[in-house]
């Protein structure tokens, strides 16, 4: 255990290693560590932002859904109203048509009744005359009384 040149040699080696470490080892590694720290901070930040965005999007989606439902309800209501309206219109039209057909038929019927009445009236005159003829037998002058019987028939 002697103190000798080794003490200086060791100091020189120490100096060289320290300088090397200071120049080529420490700066790049600590720079990388600092950069990673920054990256992690940014990542956490981004995650926070994304969470906020997600919340906003969810709120927006809920709002949209609510609006959609409201619109759908309005459309359905409108459609129902329209359907009722169409049914009402159809009903009205049908009634109108029925009325019109009934009126035509009524008119036709009346005409036929009138025709039948006319026919009957003319035949009543003949019948009455024939009847009277039978009752009176020859005592009646056809020509003198035809006018009278016609008058009677017109009153029927």
């Amino acid at each position: 255990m002697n103190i000798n040149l080794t003490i200086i040699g060791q100091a020189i080696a120490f100096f060289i290693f320290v300088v090397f470490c200071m120049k080529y080892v420490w700066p790049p590694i600590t720079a990388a560590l600092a950069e990673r720290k920054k990256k992690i901070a940014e990542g956490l930040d981004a995650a926070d932002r994304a969470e906020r965005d997600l919340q906003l999007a969810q709120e927006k989606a809920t709002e949209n859904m609510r609006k959609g439902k409201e619109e759908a309800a309005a459309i359905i209501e409108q459609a129902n109203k329209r359907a009722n309206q169409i049914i009402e219109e159809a009903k009205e039209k049908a009634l109108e048509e029925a009325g019109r057909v009934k009126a035509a038929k009524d008119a036709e019927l009346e005409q036929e009744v009138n025709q039948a009445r006319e026919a009957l009236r003319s035949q009543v005159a003949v019948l009455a005359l024939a009847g009277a003829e039978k009752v009176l037998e020859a005592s009646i002058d056809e020509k003198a009384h035809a006018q009278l019987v016609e008058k009677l028939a017109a009153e029927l």
Partner: protein
Amino acid sequence: MASGTVTSSEYISHHLTNLTFGNHPVNGWSFAHSGQEAAEMGFWAINVDTMGWSIALGLLFTWLFRKVAKTVTSGVPGSTQNFVETIIEFVDDNVKGIFHHKNPLIAPLSLTIFVWIFLMNTMDLIPVDWIPYIAGQMGIHFMKVVPTTDVNATAGMALSVFALIIYYSIKQKGLGGFLAELSFQPLGKAMLPFNLFLELVGLIAKPVSLALRLFGNMYAGEMIFILIALLPFWIQWVLSVPWAIFHILVITLQAFIFMVLTIVYLAMSYDHH
């Protein structure tokens, strides 16, 4: 034991002798053949094993960390990068907790101290006979594999730290301010010689305690491993395993203490008292 023919004391002193190359008064420039010869070489000799192992371990450290630094990514780190980052963050936290000024040197200095000393201490866990035996087979007589059990290594680092303490003290406070701090505290100007004596002792104690604490711990630990190695081989594990496990704590702790004290001393050299 290395061989049956050496005595216990020879075995121990052999394991505690560095491989020294220097100018011997009789043999000239040569490797010392004993601790005695190494001492005779005086200051102008170098412990080749200490230098070799410490530089090799320093290169291992710089290679590993440089490899990571070159491919470092701020994305998902690989396992090596993760490991290196853990160490760097650990050191950085300590530096930031103790040293509150801006200085680009302190953190890499602390990292180098921590990892390098840790690696040198870790050599302690390699069974004490392995590397010296291999070296002996290669014709190298002495081989002390734990650089921090050589006081030259620890003192070399402690003196470097001491130089930084002086440098930053003068840089921050000016030469006058630094001298005033040494002279006018703690008892005021009237007691200048006493103050100076007290403060100088305090100042010198810093590198001395740094060097001797590390050296003492590792030397003692190594010594106990050597003593355990003197036991019969079938019983050694009973002591060496618990001691090695305990030593894992010691080597980490000593590296950590050296680093923290360095940071504390340099922070003190920045602060005005």
